């Protein structure tokens, strides 16, 4: 009886909660962290840029299916491989009422090149912008850049006058914290469908629907309340208790709980992030191994043996609860340049693996330490443990060193001279194009050109480098795809890395709320519809 009463009361409370939420059209959601700053050029990071994408906009945008659509530019054309003309949208106003014009685009681009900017790479793709008239610009690039428009999605446009009036003409980040202001870090003035009504960093941010927006959107949300909740258990509890309409990420192991709970369900799909393993192929002797005087990973047979020893299907079923997509390529299907024909993973064949190891001179295997983050990717540490167990079956003893991301990245990245022998990493190309992956992960490491910055294992093939250069400049889609295919085929043949899977996106949503789960894990309020 008591239980029944309790349930009734709970249902009543829930019903009240639902009705008030629906009438106010308030959308409440939580993420594990907060946006780092409101400055659109201060940090080039997915969550921050996605969060700000509801307030600021670029010349182009991604729709719910991650297809490129026009935004502040109505259209664009390629005049020559290094020259583009953009026709800007007329009648767009910033939230403070100022009209959007070519000057704002030029100003924003120049702002990305200021000292505090973390968008210098994007800004640097452009060498000059010429204003033809208020709504036409010509953009010149130092090199042919077929992915230019995709990059400009994340280069948000600020109001020149607003920035000048508030001393925010330079991008704000810790690099400039002492010298420049902090106005743009705490205030926003974009062209997007929402304005920031109040913000307490790390506590709460309230968005209100902008009085007018240049585009029809399907969202009926009038107000958005965002709360960062760092503890997984608290975030899940808050969702189930009906205090939130959406929460992410939800730990994979909590999906069953969400299924069982009334009024909420998990929303999952493949993320465009590819998780892969890498091996140090650069050093003459591994830093963390019992093999001395030589580097076993320099032998392609050893790398192949590793690839065939790992059962991706088992990782999918046992570690990822069936929610990952095993992959044979370093890029996800959503990424431009993906070719399904090349996506077959290395076959699981421990027999072959043992044979290859024996041929390479390691019939009894060897020992190696694996570096692994434990709070960066979905179930990252468990994946590493599974990989270690699988490699143990073919005689390779893997010692897993799992650390928080701050320590992990400090150890394995360039600034610490790639201090690793065997590692797990994940990558989503910011431009959603294969070139980004080839440039950062697959190119030979080169300090001057910045190529291969995240090629932690030092995989190096001059032909892949050459192809990467050609792909950067090739504007014909078909020829470009052929070049991309060639590069990935070589990389696969040589087992430069071992791709594992695309990890699942894991959101929890209150029943009746519709959202679009984009493969880049960005929540766009434009696609949120409340019941």
């Amino acid at each position: 009886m008591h239980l029944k009463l309790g349930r009734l009361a709970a249902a009543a409370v829930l019903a009240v909660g639902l009705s008030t939420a629906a009438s106010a059209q308030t959308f409440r959601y939580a993420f594990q962290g907060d946006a780092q700053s409101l400055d659109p050029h201060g940090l080039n990071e997915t969550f921050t840029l996605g969060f700000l994408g509801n307030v600021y906009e670029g010349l182009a945008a991604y729709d719910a299916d991650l297809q490129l659509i026009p935004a502040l530019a109505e259209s664009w054309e390629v005049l020559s491989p290094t020259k583009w003309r953009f026709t800007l949208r007329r009648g767009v106003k910033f939230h403070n009422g100022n009209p959007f014009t070519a000057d704002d685009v030029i100003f924003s681009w120049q702002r990305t090149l200021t000292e505090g900017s973390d968008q210098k790479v994007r800004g640097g793709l452009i060498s000059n912008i010429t204003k033809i008239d208020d709504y036409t610009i010509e953009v010149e690039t130092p090199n042919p850049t077929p992915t230019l428009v995709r990059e400009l999605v994340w280069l948000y446009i600020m109001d020149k006058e607003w920035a000048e009036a508030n001393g925010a003409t330079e991008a704000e980040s810790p690099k400039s914290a002492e010298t420049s202001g902090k106005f743009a870090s705490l205030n926003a003035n974009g062209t997007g469908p929402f304005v920031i009504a109040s913000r307490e960093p790390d506590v709460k941010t309230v968005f209100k629907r902008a009085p007018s927006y240049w585009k029809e959107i399907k969202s009926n949300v009038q107000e958005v309340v965002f709360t960062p909740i760092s503890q997984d258990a608290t975030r899940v509890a808050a969702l189930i208790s009906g205090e939130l309409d959406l929460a992410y990420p939800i730990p994979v192991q909590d999906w069953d709980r969400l299924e069982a709970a009334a009024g909420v369900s998990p929303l999952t799909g493949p993320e465009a992030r590819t998780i892969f393993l890498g091996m140090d192929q650069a050093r003459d002797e591994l830093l963390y191994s019992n093999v001395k005087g030589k580097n076993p990973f320099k032998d392609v047979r050893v790398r192949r043996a590793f690839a065939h020893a790992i059962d991706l299907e088992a990782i999918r079923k046992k570690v990822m609860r069936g929610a990952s997509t095993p992959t044979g390529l370093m890029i996800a299907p959503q990424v431009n340049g993906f070719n399904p024909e090349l996506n077959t993973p290395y076959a699981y064949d421990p027999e072959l693996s043992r044979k290859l190891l024996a041929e390479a001179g390691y019939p009894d295997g060897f020992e190696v330490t694996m570096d692994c983050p434990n709070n960066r990717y979905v179930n990252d540490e468990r994946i590493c443990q599974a990989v270690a167990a699988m490699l143990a079956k073919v005689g390779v003893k893997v010692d897993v060193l799992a650390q928080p991301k701050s320590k992990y990245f400090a150890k394995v990245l360039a600034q610490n001279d790639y201090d690793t022998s065997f590692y797990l990493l994940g990558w989503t190309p910011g431009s959603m194009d294969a070139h980004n992956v080839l440039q950062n992960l697959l190119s030979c490491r080169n300090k001057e050109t910045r190529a291969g910055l995240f090629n932690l294992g030092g995989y190096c093939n001059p032909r892949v480098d050459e192809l990467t250069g050609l792909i950067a400049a090739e504007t014909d889609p078909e020829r470009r795809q052929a070049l991309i295919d060639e590069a990935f085929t070589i990389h696969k043949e040589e087992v430069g890395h071992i791709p594992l899977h695309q990890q699942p996106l894991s959101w929890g949503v209150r029943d009746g709320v519709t959202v679009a789960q984009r493969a880049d894990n960005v929540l766009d309020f434009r696609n949120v519809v409340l019941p």
Partner: protein
Amino acid sequence: MIGFVLRRLLQSVLVMLTVALIAFGLFRYVGDPINNLVGQDTSAIEREQLRKKLGLDDPFVVQFARFVKNAARGDFGISYRHRRPVAELIVERLPATLELSIVAALLALLVGVPMGVYTGLHRDGFLSRTFMTLSLVGVSLPTFLIGILLILLFGVVLRWLPTFGRGEVVAIGWWTTGLLTASGLKALIMPAVTLALFQMTLIMRLVRAEMLEVLRTDYIKFARARGLSNRAIHFGHALKNTLVPVITITGLQLGSIIAFAIITESVFQWPGMGLLFIQAINEVDIPVMAAYLVMIAFFFVVINLAVDLLYYLVDPRLRVDREQAAGHG
């Protein structure tokens, strides 16, 4: 008396310096802040420039000296993550933590002391045994688990109380309070109980043990022989004489409540200093970590000082000058 206070305050500076020194020695092992400050496409050269600019290249002695020099002028630097002065951040978060801690400490005292007295007087009563058994739970369950269990019961199953946050707050000058709104009070219940539970059981057990000790003493027997009422004996004589250790422990525990609010704050996403500190650790925000640790050290020193002063108030023997006492002897 004034000399004593001044001496203690001087000692506090030493304590804070030591804490800061140890903290700076440890920061090297926390990780590299740079990767949290830039995106994945940022070049190695820019990363190096940023590292230089932030002074992370310097040996830790130099970093420490710089911190002390600036801190002496009241400048705790700028948070890497929030890009705002650390002092400002801490002042903003201070009310949430202090409100939570003080409510928790009051709760622990107001419930713990009577429970301790009761269990001390009625050693074998049914209620005493129940209290004692329950207090074992409070002592042995980790705060984190208690918080999660409370959330599950009152937040998810019964849906009586909010599972996270501080509710609506009212600003009074720079101080923000959740004590004046219904949602703020509701939000305070679970975190305060979680934080208070351990202290409550500790105080209860301490008072009980002290009571048992005192009740056996001759002066209590003598008081009974004089025919004083139970009430006067228990509260006027016995309880008063148990208070010195209780004050010490409660005082020290107030320090730990503030310091260990970290866990409770992170379970309930309570926007206080503890949460700020946890987030700073995750992001390797060195200025915030350093300032927080130094401040907590300062709190401990001040609380200890306050406890010492309270002794004078409770125990008349300490108020008498030593020479004078010797003269009488």
